[in-house]
């Protein structure tokens, strides 16, 4: 069904182009609108210089023009989007006080439930599913007046680093269409990097926001665990899953995070503390006197020389901006990856038990002769892809009696040790930095049937998931023409700190480059 909807995208695109020739908004304005940041669009909208419908239309036209190459979207519905935009224009016309992002479009990773669009989590088992309720983040962004452009592609149930595990198709990296856009939130990163959306949402369980942001040259933030609601976000590993924003600037990411953050009584692990002042921090790009720790363990073998070089330059830059840089050892971080690949599959094997072919989703083989258990096993075998099956099996193994202490129990102890490493580090420094991911975007297909190689993409991002810390990826340059990301990690509820450092790096690098990194990407 999603396939049909995609061809619908191209159909509406042709209609839009035909309409555009006789329409009121010239091609030039449209091209300019999609290159504006969310903050700029918000100002134009509140000043009445442009309507939400015009902004939405410009982005829908962009999607129609380039998504055939990028494959960022699983679902686009022009009429639903335009109706949302017109409603925002009416709310504004009626004098309603709207937030800074009212009328700005957003693309949602297809893991957030949406009542007016299908939600599949990139899986055949949920093909065509229409959720009966909105995720808290979906609902809050609707209330804030953001307009949903569509649902973005992802690795099935957020398991992967490339979108190659999507049951539908692989998204492309706008910098090089033969390369992966990262994952699991790869449709969301590709959409923002290709100017199809100014903002998008993602989820980060082991790096699924930061790694795709890094390899597509944009900003991606994993908030503090519990700082963003999981209600209505299809679960992968509940103690790790963290929704967060993608944007082309640090300020835009902060604006989006602020718009959906805050305590949610529908999520039992939502934190009650006030939302850190992330927007204010993103506007005060200043690291003078800040203590920055370089994680010693995240360098050396396995890191692209270009990635290491850009990272070292970013550290020098921070020092030149007045930060005090020291090397910090976090000896257990190298055990984060194996611990994660026990903890996350264990939680996934439990969470995905809900796909039982009984209440929603696919049902296979119910011919009146088979038992519920047989139908369940046939449905799950057909509805889940290879990586999801691998992880369910791995989790079932790690949790089974006789192996529990040796694997899951041990991984939980490693989690404690990583937490202690972070605590010791944050006694010495205010933030920690590392490359976001050891390599630039790899070619599609290169790691597709080598799970261990694929898992290495998350080497540097996983520690912050195991301990719930805030962490961001900001662009820090190119290696062989492909983007490199700088990861900045702060203590739990220190989200404002990573925005402050990220914004300082962004400002200094843009001064050096004469504009954003993304301006160097080839035109689509």
């Amino acid at each position, binding site marked *: 069904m999603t396939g049909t909807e995609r061809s619908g995208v191209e159909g509406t695109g042709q209609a839009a182009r035909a309409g555009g020739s006789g329409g009121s908004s010239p091609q030039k304005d449209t091209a300019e609108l999609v290159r504006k940041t969310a903050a700029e669009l918000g100002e134009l909208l509140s000043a009445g210089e442009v309507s939400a419908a015009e902004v939405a239309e410009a982005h829908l036209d962009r999607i129609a023009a380039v998504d055939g190459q990028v494959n960022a979207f699983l679902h686009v519905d022009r009429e639903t989007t335009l109706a949302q935009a017109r409603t925002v224009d009416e709310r504004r016309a009626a004098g309603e006080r709207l937030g800074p992002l009212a009328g700005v479009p957003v693309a949602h990773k297809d893991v957030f439930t949406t009542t007016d669009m299908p939600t599949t989590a990139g899986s055949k088992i949920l093909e065509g*599913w*229409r959720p*009966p*309720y909105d995720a808290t983040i979906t609902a809050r962004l609707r209330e804030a007046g953001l307009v949903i452009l569509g649902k973005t592609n992802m690795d099935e149930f957020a398991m992967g680093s490339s979108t190659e595990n999507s049951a539908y198709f692989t998204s492309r990296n706008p910098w090089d269409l033969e390369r992966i856009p990262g994952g699991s939130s790869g449709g969301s990163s590709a959409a923002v990097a290709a100017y199809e959306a100014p903002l998008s949402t993602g989820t980060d369980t082991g790096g699924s926001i930061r790694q795709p942001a890094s390899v597509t040259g944009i900003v991606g933030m994993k908030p503090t*665990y*519990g700082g963003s609601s999981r209600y209505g976000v299809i679960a992968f590993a509940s*103690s*790790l899953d963290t929704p967060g924003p993608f944007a082309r600037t640090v300020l835009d990411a902060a604006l989006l995070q602020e718009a959906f953050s805050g305590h949610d*009584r529908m999520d*039992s*692990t939502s*934190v009650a503390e006030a939302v850190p002042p992330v927007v204010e921090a993103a506007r005060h790009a200043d690291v003078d006197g800040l203590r920055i720790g370089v994680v010693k363990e995240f360098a050396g073998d396995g890191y692209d020389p270009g990635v290491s070089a850009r990272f070292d330059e970013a550290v020098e830059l921070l020092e030149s901006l007045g930060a005090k840089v020291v090397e910090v050892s976090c000896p257990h971080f190298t*055990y984060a990856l*194996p*611990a994660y*690949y*026990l903890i996350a599959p264990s939680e996934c*094997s439990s969470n995905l038990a809900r796909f039982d*072919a*009984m*209440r*929603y*989703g696919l*049902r296979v083989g*119910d011919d*009146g002769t*088979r*038992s*519920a*258990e047989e*139908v369940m*096993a*046939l449905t*799950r*075998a057909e509805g*889940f892809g290879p990586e999801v*099956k*691998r992880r*369910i*099996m*791995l989790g*079932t*193994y790690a949790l*089974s009696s006789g192996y529990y202490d*040796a*694997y899951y129990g*041990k*991984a*939980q*102890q*490693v*989690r*404690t*040790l990583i937490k202690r490493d972070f605590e010791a580090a944050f006694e010495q420094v205010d933030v920690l930095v590392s490359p976001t991911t050891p390599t630039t975007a790899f070619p599609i297909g290169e790691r597709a049937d080598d*799970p*261990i190689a694929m898992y290495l993409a998350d080497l540097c991002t996983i520690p912050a998931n*195991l*301990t*719930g810390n805030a962490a961001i990826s900001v662009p820090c340059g190119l290696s062989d023409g492909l983007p490199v990301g700088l990861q900045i990690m702060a203590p*739990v509820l220190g989200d404002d700190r990573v925005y402050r450092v990220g914004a300082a790096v962004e400002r200094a690098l843009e001064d050096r480059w004469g504009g954003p990194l993304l301006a160097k990407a080839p035109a689509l």
Partner: protein
Amino acid sequence: MSAITRDEVSHLARLSRLALGDDELDHLAAQLDQIISAVARVQEVAAEDIPPTSHALPLTNVYRTDEARECLTPEQALAAAPATEGQRFRVPRILDEEA
């Protein structure tokens, strides 16, 4: 020495409610063996007397207040069901004996 046998993989598939064919089980057995050998590195860590951490934040369970709230209507709850009967989910037989 392999970390996991083909028979164990077959048993895991049954526990996981995944009706996998022989080819898929063979393929998975090799991959799981590789993955388990890699993740077994956690056993190198000296973790005697280290308490386990099951969650990122030290949260305690929360209870909602016992009050009526809006919820899904039966029609909404059943809308995506593969099969329904009246206001109920219709499921295949759950007992082994023939009715």
